[in-house]
């Protein structure tokens, strides 16, 4: 076959086509294999980063839950490395590490501002591959906002009651020095806060509003008691400082016994069973839980002014019936526990090693 013949030229064409086809096939296969190798490497780094990010989010969640309401972590956290040699997590950059984790905790308030969310965004980087995971809380409702309107957010005066909300309720006032209290009227009052878990981020001083009001005494001479009760219905309750009011009956002034108290209740169908009874958990995280003794004063005249004012006697720290101080401790509480007059077995101390505030929030965080 002569190469210059028509057959020869055609044969060269066939060979060239074969070369082109083979080289295309080989190149494509090569590129594909390289892509697969890189994908496998990325998959490895991606998974390693994913689980490190998960670790960071878990730790940040635990730290957030462990802190009291006023000191909850928020902002950028220091970078944490996973040391390859010691197989541990550390803040200082080690010589050899698998990857590092950056965590941000932020609070997001929605546009309507009727609830807030906390987000934990954990980003881990392994070999140049980053992966983020986000933990978000369920809505945390403020008690002063619509539709609850349980109290005035500036003065702290209790104004309403609510039905059970299956959410985490935050009771917070925003004026410096304000605390949650009843109005000054000397008339019976009941308020009912009801939620799955309730956290008081402000102190409670039920008689803070004073009692410089007046009323006719017809009810009182019948022997009735002046009672203002804040009923807290929740499976988990977190308190700061608490001040309750107590005044003895004054027969000389025809003034009744008075008490401003807090009663703890358990939502229906909830609670922990202990010794055949249902209990909730209450944490007194403030420095004081006391009752302040008040005394009656009465003006002259037929329609006399009655006032309650602080007596000179010292405030009395509240205790369980068994004598355990409430402040700084955690208790299982039985339905109907009146903090002014706890009955035997109504408040059972929770040993420190069994105190687990995480339970209150167990289902509160969700992975996005």
């Amino acid at each position, binding site marked *: 076959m002569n190469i210059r013949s028509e057959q020869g030229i055609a044969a060269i064409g066939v060979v060239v086509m074969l070369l082109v086809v083979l080289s295309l096939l080989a190149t494509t296969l090569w590129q594909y294999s390289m892509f697969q190798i890189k994908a496998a490497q990325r998959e490895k780094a991606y998974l390693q980063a994913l689980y490190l990010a998960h670790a960071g989010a*878990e730790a940040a969640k635990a730290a957030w839950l462990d802190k009291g309401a006023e000191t909850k972590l928020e902002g950028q956290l220091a970078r944490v490395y996973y040391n390859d040699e010691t197989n541990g*997590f550390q803040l200082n950059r080690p010589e050899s590490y698998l990857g590092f984790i950056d965590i941000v905790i932020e609070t997001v308030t929605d546009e309507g501002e009727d609830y807030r969310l906390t987000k934990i965004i954990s980003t881990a980087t392994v070999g140049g591959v980053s992966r983020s995971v986000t933990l978000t809380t369920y809505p945390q409702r403020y008690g002063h906002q619509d539709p609850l309107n349980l109290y005035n957010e500036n003065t702290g005066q209790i104004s309403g009651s609510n039905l059970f909300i299956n959410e985490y309720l935050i009771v917070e006032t925003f004026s410096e020095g304000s605390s949650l209290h009843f109005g000054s009227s000397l008339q019976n009052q009941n308020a009912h806060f009801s939620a799955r878990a309730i956290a008081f981020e402000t102190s409670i001083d039920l008689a803070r509003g004073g009692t410089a009001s007046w009323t006719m005494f017809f009810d009182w001479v019948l022997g009735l008691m002046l009672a203002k009760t804040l009923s807290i219905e929740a499976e988990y309750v977190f308190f700061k400082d608490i001040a309750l009011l107590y005044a003895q009956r004054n027969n000389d002034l025809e003034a009744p016994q008075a008490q401003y108290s807090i009663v703890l209740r358990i939502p229906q169908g909830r609670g922990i069973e202990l010794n055949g009874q249902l209990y909730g958990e209450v944490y007194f995280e403030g420095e004081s839980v006391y009752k302040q003794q008040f005394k009656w004063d009465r003006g002259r005249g037929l329609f006399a002014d009655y006032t309650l004012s602080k007596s000179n006697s010292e405030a009395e720290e509240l205790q369980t019936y068994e004598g355990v101080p409430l402040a700084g401790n955690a208790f299982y509480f039985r339905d109907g526990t009146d903090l002014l007059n706890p009955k035997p077995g109504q408040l059972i101390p929770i040993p420190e090693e069994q105190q687990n505030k995480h339970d209150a929030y167990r289902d509160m965080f969700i992975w996005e």
Partner: protein
Amino acid sequence: MFGRFCSDQSGMTLIEVIVALVLISLIAVAFVPMISTSVKYINQARERCEHWASGRSQMEILMAKAAQGYAGNTEVLFPVKLEGSHEPPVMIQGVKIEVGTEEKLVTFLAAGDHNQ
């Protein structure tokens, strides 16, 4: 030209066919290492993907077990501290969950979230 080539009835000699086959084989052989390496890499990549998929499922099982109180994971501390803070870090107690040896998957579960 191709038309005339195709319509030509004369054909090729045996030697021409053999030479052509040898040439084609030589050309093909030149590409064999590249192709075989590619195939090897693809197989390796597939195996690694399967390995990580298996690692991931093991990890999920261990995490679920740890959450239910399964003992057998290493207890570790995880330092948490605000950036720029001079306070000492809060050391969160928990367990380390690990799969693999050299190329490992590692995560952490805080003590409050499991029953150990």
